[in-house]
């Protein structure tokens, strides 16, 4: 039976080890946006031994490229993008920099799942295509790096009760496999 948690960033080991696949998490606090283009730049900075544009330790990164905000709004529609494009980058941020959470949609590879176990991190799923609904939980947004990337720039978001489901936990489980096996009917 899945449980419901209310958590605030930055996340600690204690925060994440209690979570199991299928649990619901309402996340509040500061999170950062990045898609593949921004991830590549972060990894390049790590390779050069330079400082990253935000403190990755305990952080949650949201894979999103929002629509432009309407006048007076902090952000436009902002649902998750497909996460596998970040698979080649996420393990290093988790294992070497202490990232604790990722928000996206869709399958991750074994390296990401292994990093979640080894360094205690969580892959959260948000509802793809619910961009208008999810934007309501974002109270402020500020571009902090790579404005030239447009929708793919790194933004600092302040979120309140952002609705998430645990897809990959710190025990190596995968909701996509477990959930599907439960409902699959073989020919």
């Amino acid at each position, binding site marked *: 039976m899945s449980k419901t948690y209310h958590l605030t960033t930055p996340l600690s080991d204690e925060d994440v080890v209690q979570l199991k696949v299928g649990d619901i998490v309402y996340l509040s606090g500061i999170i950062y946006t990045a898609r593949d283009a921004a991830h590549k730049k972060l990894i390049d900075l790590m390779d050069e031994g330079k400082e990253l544009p935000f403190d990755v330790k305990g952080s949650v990164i949201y894979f999103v490229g929002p629509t*432009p905000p309407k006048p007076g709004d902090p952000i436009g*529609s902002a649902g998750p993008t*497909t996460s596998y494009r970040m698979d080649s980058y996420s393990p290093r941020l988790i294992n070497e920099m202490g990232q604790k959470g990722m928000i996206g949609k869709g*399958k991750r590879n074994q390296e990401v799942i292994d990093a979640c176990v080894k360094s205690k991190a969580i892959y959260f799923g948000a*509802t*793809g295509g619910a961009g208008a609904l999810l934007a*309501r939980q974002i109270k402020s947004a500020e571009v902090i790096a790579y404005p030239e990337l447009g*929708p793919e720039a790194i933004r600092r978001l302040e979120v309140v009760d952002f609705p998430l489901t645990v897809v990959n936990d710190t025990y190596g489980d995968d909701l996509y496999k477990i*959930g599907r*096996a439960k409902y699959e009917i073989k020919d």
Partner: protein
Amino acid sequence: MREIKYEDIVKAVRDHIIYSGTNLSKDALAALNKAYEEEESPVCKEVLKQLLENADIAANEARPLCQDTGLAVFFVKVGEDLKVIGGTLKDAINEGTRKGYEEGYFRASTCVWNTRANLKDEIGYNLPAIIHFDLVAGDELEIEYAAKGGGSENVSRATVLPPAAGREGIVNFVKEVVSNAGPNPCPPIIVGVGIGGTFEKAAISSKHALFRTVGTTNEDATLEDMEEELMLKLNNLGIGAMGMGGRETVLGVHIEANPCHIASLPVSVNVQCHSSRHTSFKL
């Protein structure tokens, strides 16, 4: 020869893009409601509830349903007795696309294939549109439009089967594509299948199949039967809304078939996410 003004086409395209990007099409909404009612999996039911709420918020506040406002795809039937005054038809559709995406606060998602630089700064907002023209008899202009997101396009596949593979080979290929896609294309999905023609004809047919109203049956009895079989088999995969495990994986299977070469059986599967933003209009 009937005349139609360039700026009338621009305005119609702009308005339809903004409306369909913020108001989920009635057929997709009805299909999502049905999926919500019938879903047994609690986690997927919650996802479907969020999607219905999202559609409400987007319509009431004129916000994009999804941040991936897609590439603009058009199927255009041009009457041979129709003349556009003040510009070309292609320019009018592109200009309407630019205005729709920019004035609707939609995302510019078109980039250069290798540098990945956003084309917004070079040739305009989310241009060029993907336009398929067809010349027809008469003096009407019929435009079908859909916004096509990247996540569902990324899992789409085409192949050319040996003719001996037949119907069973087609069904197995579609099942394989949807099974491998899993949660990635934002299920519950609509599955467009193009059969026959040449390699590219099958692909274009699978795209056009997505423009059909969800919930309608195929006019061809053989294809209708295949669609029913596929609906059952694809829902049995257990993928569910956003891939979290459930019964409602597919909102519709739409097949378009064409005659093909005696040596070939081309098949294409084009996947559309649950946010099926499409419309059609005549001018």
